[in-house]
């Protein structure tokens, strides 16, 4: 099974080489892979339905419980029919739809194939984390497919919106998966189903997972990315947004039904959101003039329907959701493909412009009518069979009557917009000139015909679909549902409700204009999901700019001040408030330390107050010599020697550089309001260091073991009487090697800086002469020295 999925992806990698030049062939070849997957799945129908599903598992990372575990059970089989079956048909259709040799075709072929593979992996996965992996991959594929080349602003925005909304859901869902996995001790759905976790973790996980489901399956309030994504070419909309990707959420609910079945609030939540979505989607569909947008809102509405069914948590609900998944996939795919064909042949999909298409494209019209019948839920299509089951779930006395009423209302809207679609796309309208349309090529109507006929055939031959759906219901709930899918159950309440739905829907369609007029009376600023999304994004931008603008000031003194402040606050507070012992303070160890300390302090104060640079440098030198003096008094001649020498060298370097700088400091003095905090902070920093020195040196009263060892070993083992030198070149020679490399680097850096400045100045002086190498120009100006080249 992994092989099949991987084959999709691998072929997708290889395809770009061919898809630009041989478009149709490339798509046809690409269609082979989903077909192969479908055949493989069908070949394993019997074991899948009988409770012995084929399984396969490849471990990716054991410590993280990441493994690709595949399992073909009834639900997976149902989805495979959609994913691979419709996928193959869409690929064949695309071969005809896209301009050969165009960029769209070259890009879409591999991406569609990759998407098919990823979707296949998703429906076959038995491991929660693997499901997430494929889930996010579908998000990425969708982003790239919707955006195409990203030339138009609307496609960029739409793809970004889809990406962000579904990625948000995906990430939240991941958290839910982790909670579930940790609580249940395993990430395998099949194992979790046997021992579902309960209590708070399960509830939290369900809530998080529901966010993911709602975003992917375009439920309120996340539903707006779906209509926005209609900027994509029609085959892509068909596959992603009708047949497979948007179903992923509902599929996940169905897959996790045995695991989350115990959670109390699940049916209620899904019902509320689902019905709201169904109603809003249907309502919007009645308003649209673009046939594709009409279908998009219709999809939103139907997804609401599916969500309600998937969350129902009863065997009957499971039966109906499986049937409805299949039915919806078939009729929606057909309708999208048909709209694409009409668009391709007539050049328009606006129903105000189309007229009399039925006469021009009779085959296409027939196909469309078949699919619309299924959508509206009329016998003998599979749509009717599924809808009966759905109504039975809620209206047949098992509970949730209100939900059932909601479903009926939604179905009324569905019938209405189905009629609107047929009328808008194909009927002749008075006052509108008949659209011109050339006959559709086979490649454009055949795939749609296949799916439409499939819908009809499955409806008539309903035992087939019954076996499939019942298999799923049984595997989920452990016992079969008493109900069976059929075209005729007798004069049951669902039947009456179906009739009611049909009548109501047709009425609504006929009165549509007046209803639209009613709409004008509604308050203008109703909550609108799209506006909400835009406001959130705008707020995010403002937040980002605001926070960064305040925080990233660009001023070095501020940065240093914050570092110093953090040092004072965090460790300083700890030391101030814990019980820190300090040993007896002495004034001084040797009397000479006092005048030296005074000299250092005065020099330090002088440096801060100096106005001339030379003064400041010399005072820094005084500080250095003072410290050297402290070393002498304290008894460290080597240290003092090194200190004096280094200080001298530093002074020399300073003086050499000062020749180039102005004599006085040129920065303007900052205002007292700024200076005071700086002074306080610096003083506090100094006090902190001094205090810490006191505290820490009083923490130990025995000599250090290390020093004793040095003293002991210096003579015999290092052959040295100067212990300091022994430490530098023997005991800790490695530090010495490191530090001299630092010196080397520093010298090189200085050279680099100085010489860069020189060559930059030289280059500015001769802007036209850029071909001359620096060596030549160096020779002419400075006469003989060659540091530029050596640099």
């Amino acid at each position, binding site marked *: 099974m992994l092989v099949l999925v991987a084959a999709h992806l691998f072929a997708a990698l290889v395809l770009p080489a061919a898809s630009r030049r041989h478009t149709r062939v490339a798509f046809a070849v690409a269609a082979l892979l989903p077909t192969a997957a479908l055949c493989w799945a069908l070949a394993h129908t019997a074991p899948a339905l009988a409770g012995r599903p084929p399984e396969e598992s490849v471990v990716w990372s054991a410590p993280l419980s990441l493994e690709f575990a595949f399992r073909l059970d009834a639900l997976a089989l149902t989805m495979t029919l959609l994913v691979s079956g419709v996928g193959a048909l869409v690929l064949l259709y695309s071969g005809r739809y896209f301009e050969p040799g165009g960029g769209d075709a070259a890009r879409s072929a591999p991406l569609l194939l990759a998407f098919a593979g990823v979707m296949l992996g998703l429906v076959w996965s038995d491991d929660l*984390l693997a499901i997430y992996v494929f889930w996010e991959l579908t998000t990425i594929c969708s982003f790239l497919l919707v955006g195409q080349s990203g030339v138009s602003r609307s496609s960029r925005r739409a793809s970004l919106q889809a990406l962000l909304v579904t990625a948000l859901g995906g990430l939240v869902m991941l958290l839910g998966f982790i909670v579930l996995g940790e609580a249940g001790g395993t990430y395998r759905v099949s194992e979790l189903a046997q021992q579902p976790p309960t209590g708070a973790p399960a509830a939290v996980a369900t809530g998080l997972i529901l966010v993911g489901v709602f975003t992917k399956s375009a439920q309120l309030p996340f539903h707006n990315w779906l209509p926005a994504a209609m900027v994509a070419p029609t085959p892509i909309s068909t596959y992603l947004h009708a047949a497979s990707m948007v179903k992923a959420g509902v599929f996940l609910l169905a897959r996790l039904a045995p695991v989350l079945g115990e959670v109390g609030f699940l049916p209620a939540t899904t019902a509320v959101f689902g019905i709201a979505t169904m109603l809003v989607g249907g309502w919007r569909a009645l308003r649209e003039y673009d046939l594709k947008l009409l279908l998009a809102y219709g999809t939103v509405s139907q997804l609401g329907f599916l969500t309600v069914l998937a969350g129902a948590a009863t065997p009957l609900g499971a039966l109906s959701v499986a049937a409805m998944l299949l039915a919806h996939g078939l009729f929606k795919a057909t309708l999208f493909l048909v709209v694409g064909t009409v668009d391709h042949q007539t050049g328009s999909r606006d129903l105000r412009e189309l007229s009399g298409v039925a006469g021009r494209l009779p085959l296409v019209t027939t196909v469309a009518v078949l699919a619309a019948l299924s959508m509206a839920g009329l016998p003998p299509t599979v749509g009717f069979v599924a809808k009966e089951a759905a109504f039975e779930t809620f209206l047949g006395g098992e509970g949730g009557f209100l939900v059932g009423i909601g479903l009926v209302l939604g179905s009324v809207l569905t019938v209405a917009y189905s009629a609107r679609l047929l009328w808008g796309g194909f009927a002749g309208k008075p006052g509108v000139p008949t659209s011109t349309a050339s006959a559709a090529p086979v490649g454009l109507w055949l795939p749609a015909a296949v799916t439409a006929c499939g819908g009809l055939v499955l409806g008539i031959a309903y035992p087939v679909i019954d076996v499939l759906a019942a298999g799923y219901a049984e595997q989920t709930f452990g016992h079969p549902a008493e109900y069976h899918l059929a075209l005729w159950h007798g004069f049951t309440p669902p039947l009456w409700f179906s009739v009611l739905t049909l009548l109501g829907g047709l009425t609504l369609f006929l009165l549509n204009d007046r209803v639209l007029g009613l709409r004008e009376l509604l308050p203008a600023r109703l909550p609108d999901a799209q506006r909400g999304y835009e406001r959130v994004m705008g707020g995010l931008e403002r937040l980002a700019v605001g926070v960064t603008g305040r925080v990233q000031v660009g001023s070095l003194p501020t940065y240093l001040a914050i570092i110093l402040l953090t040092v004072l606050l965090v460790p300083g507070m700890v030391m101030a408030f814990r019980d820190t012992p300090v040993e007896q303070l002495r004034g001084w160890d040797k009397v000479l330390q006092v005048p030296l300390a005074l000299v250092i302090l005065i020099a330090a104060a002088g440096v801060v107050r100096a106005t001339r640079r030379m003064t400041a440098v010399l005072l820094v030198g005084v500080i250095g010599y003072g410290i050297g003096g402290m070393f002498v008094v304290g008894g460290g001649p080597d240290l003092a020697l090194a200190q004096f020498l280094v200080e001298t060298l530093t002074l020399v370097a300073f003086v050499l550089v000062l020749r180039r700088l102005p004599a006085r400091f040129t920065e303007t003095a900052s205002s007292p309001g700024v200076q005071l905090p700086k002074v306080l902070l610096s003083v506090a920093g100094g006090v902190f260091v001094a205090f810490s020195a006191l505290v820490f040196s009083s923490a130990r009263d025995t000599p250090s073991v290390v020093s004793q060892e040095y003293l002991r070993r210096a003579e015999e083992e290092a052959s040295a009487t100067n212990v300091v030198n022994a430490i530098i070149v023997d005991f800790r020679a490695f530090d010495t090697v490191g530090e001299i490399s630092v010196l080397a680097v520093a010298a090189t850096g200085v050279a680099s800086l100085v010489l860069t400045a020189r060559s930059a100045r030289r280059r500015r002086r001769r802007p036209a002469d850029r071909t001359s190498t620096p060596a030549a120009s160096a020779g002419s100006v400075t006469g003989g020295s060659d540091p530029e080249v050596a640099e």
Partner: protein
Amino acid sequence: MSVLVAVPVLLPLGAAGLSMAFGRFADIQRWLGLLVLGVIVVDAAVLLHVADVHGPVVLHLGGWRAPVGIALVADRLAALLLLVSVIVMFSVLLYSIGQRITDYGRGTASTTFHPIYLVLCAGVSLAYLTGDLFNLFVAFEIMLASSYVLITRRTTANRVRAGMTYTIVSLSSSVLFLTLIGLVYAATGTVNLADLAERTDQLPPGPATALALLMVIVFGVKSAMVPLHFWLPDSYPNAPAPITAIFAALLTKVGIYAMIRTQILVFEREPSWPLMLMFALATMLVGALGALAQNDLNRLLSFLLVSHIGFMLFGLGVYDVAGLTGVILYIVHHITVQATLFLVSGLVTRYTGTVALSRMGGLAGISPLVAVLFAVPALSLAGVPPFSGFVAKLALLRSGIELGTSWGYAVTAGAVLTSLLTLYAVARVWTRVFWGKRREPEGDPDHSDELVVGTGDTSQGMVYATGVLVGATVLVAVLAGPLSAVSERAAIDLLSGQAYRSAVLGGGSGG
């Protein structure tokens, strides 16, 4: 055998010396650099294998046993990070040679680039391998001094200012570090890390905690933890692309590594460290928000760097095996991915002539290769499966949820939000740079500096080097199984500290 531990440090130093001596011969410098880095890659791989199978490899320098002498320790963590870092350094060197950043015009040799680069490598290796606090300071000095030179090399006047910010802030943190070492030695009488672990128990709790927090701050400055991160977005973007790549990939991670090593080895703590979790959350969010506010591609990547440092701090704050496994995985992932992204940014600037996102467009049509080279590490950074970012992020999220405290949940939620914001930032770069209408490349605004932009062509070296690194990121994802196993073992070792201490102080291999 234990001389292998000294090779990654001493060999580049020696080679740097040779490189300086042969400053006139560019070819010798290049081959020397590549050869030495290749040798170190092999050495690090061997060290990792030996450390994984037999335990930490210890070298007592000069034959003096710790704590009298300095000990170099290669345990699993150090060897793994060293291996990844040197591979990245090798690729970036290839890229730099390809970009001709090491020369200026034909026929001139550059004394400064190759030796300094080798010294930087030595510094990074030493930081990973050392077992001595003062030696760690020396390692940081080596690293930072080289970085000061590299960031101010051949820059124009206004870019030197950015380098100055970096230099002064780093020098201040070095001063703090040195103060810290003085305090540590005053209080405990030793600077050897393994020895310190035993002596900090004898300190009263106030000073001990203060020491720990001071160490956090010192290393926090180096690893750009909020609120100590300000220098990074101001200074990193101004250097040439490979330099920024190396800094972003290595220097901050060395800071994180030092923080992990010192905190866990030296101080005792229970799982869940609220202060660190707080810092982690702040870092993640401030960095991500900062990235969204940028129009400059390199600044955006710098802010994302800061943000993802927060992830590593998150794992450290969780402070148990799962959290530390996540941190180690994340460091390995992030080193490769961040370096790759900066290298790709260099490629992008070559094509478009600008770093401003608003002036770029349609690059996917001009060069699909660059688009793919960007997409892979970008998706990995955003944590999209099946790339390495997802694996590492998953480990961290799991550890956060397993922790069970309210801070743990809060930071986990923050991590998820940051992931989303990162995805948004990356997607924005994609839509602005690679999608959209094609724009003509702008000419090079400043010929005097090292940034050669807008030429529309990139040399083979640059593209191959970037490809190698992209392949490395994919490899990290593919090898997630063995890598996470090694990381888990390293984390367990780290938390117990027993193997390390006994190897250094006890009967570990000496000469």
